[in-house]
């Protein structure tokens, strides 16, 4: 009889340890995925700075979409502080929109046609692919971040994890999903309704 009790007790201890560790691991995964977003944003920043530098020498980029890119990049660089996290996020999202609209791509195409010495430049040829892949990586990083939050929240809310979390509150953290702001969503919806 005593052996049975000891057995049950051991199973409970092992179960507890496994669950506790799983929560820690999931929480860490969320923190890590968020860093991946920063890495990709950094990368994108560097690529654009390179693009602008390369183009500046050959042409007056003021007449193209690159002008907007330069303005956005300058704002983002000057904003680099923790207080302006939301503002910075909105600007980065604006840059993503610019890329998604395709106007940047056509600007680069036109630039390459009009300036043969740029076209011959190997780095310039690779830029479009670099922009596409960096934008994809950024999207996937956001996606992965949201997925890890989902996994963490779903696990945390279930049994027996919710019980463990109530006894160890530092395992409990609220993360916000990466998404565009409410005003932005309204703006997008309104765009589609108008026929202008």
């Amino acid at each position, binding site marked *: 009889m005593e052996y049975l009790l000891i057995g049950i007790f051991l199973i409970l201890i092992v179960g507890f340890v496994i669950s506790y560790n799983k929560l820690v691991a999931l929480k860490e*995964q969320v923190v890590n*995925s968020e860093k*991946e977003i920063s890495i*990709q944003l950094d990368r994108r920043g560097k690529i654009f700075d390179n693009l602008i530098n390369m183009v500046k020498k050959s042409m007056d980029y003021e007449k193209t979409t690159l002008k907007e890119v330069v303005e956005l990049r300058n704002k983002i660089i000057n904003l680099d502080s923790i207080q302006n996290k939301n503002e910075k996020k909105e600007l980065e999202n604006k840059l993503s929109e610019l890329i998604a609209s395709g106007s940047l791509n056509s600007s680069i195409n036109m630039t390459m046609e009009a300036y043969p010495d740029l076209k011959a430049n190997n780095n310039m040829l*690779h830029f479009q*692919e670099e922009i*596409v*892949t960096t934008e*994809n*990586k950024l999207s*996937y*990083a956001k*996606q*992965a971040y949201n*997925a*890890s939050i989902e996994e963490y929240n779903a696990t945390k809310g279930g049994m027996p994890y919710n019980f463990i979390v109530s006894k160890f509150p530092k395992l409990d953290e609220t993360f916000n999903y990466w998404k565009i702001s409410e005003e932005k969503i309204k703006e997008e919806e309104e765009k589609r309704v108008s026929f202008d």
Partner: protein
Amino acid sequence: MSYISYKKVIQKNREKTYIVLGIYLFIYTFLGLLVDIILHDQGGFLSTFKELITFKVFPIFTLSLLLFGFLSILISIKLFSKIQLSGEEYVEIKENNSEYKYLYNILEELKISARMKYMPKLYIIKADYMNAFASGWNEKNTLIAITTGLLEKLNRQEISAVIGHELTHIRNEDIKLTLVIGVTTNLMLFVVDWIVLMFLNGESEGAKKAKTILFIMHFLLPLLTVVLQMWLSRSREYMADSGSVELIRDPSAMASALRKISGDYKENKYNDQNITRKAAYIFESGDSIFSTHPSIKNRIKKLIG
């Protein structure tokens, strides 16, 4: 089809996998016990069976068989990757490769989406047929190979879907699964082979009954294992398709890639290629219980309804 439905597909197929693994372990152990009954050669069938299970009689053959199976799997792991790439002209694509940089980029994109720690090795196979496969035992030494035929005919999004499919095979540990089941099947078939049965003779009632069952298994087992393996393989293929969508959030890309691949195979007659790789490919023609892959029609239906 929504993102959540893909999770359901994955869950259902995971359950199927456990069922098949359970059946395998059961048959494997059961075979061992049958041989032990013959070797013990005393008493009735059920009584000896009970004695073996409770260890009153030491089930030496069963335990040796389990140990041997375990060791065989370990050895196969070492040799596995070398076999997969053999027989073709293949080139490794590294980060600094300029011609196929876009392919390396796609793989890196999906690595981020899949939250993987290590970057799989990337190879291209110079061949006209369209196909891709993944191989490797653990996270640190995985590889993905794609034919140039596929790269030429699919667009960027479709290639992403194909790579997503292969990465999912890696994440789901399908390669491990295929290996374990393959080795176990071969060992099981060996036990019921004529040569072994010749040496197993017993006088007791238990031994005679056990031998009869082994005899029946000799005919039944090959068919059973093939059907089970193929069922499992098709199930994992659906999972890989769903996993690809989970990674790139675009079901139409995978569907259109499959259409292009199957169309290409209809138009051209290709000679294969490495038979050991068959289950690892993204595509195999044919649509029966003996097929490693589900039919293209069914795969597309599961993706976009």
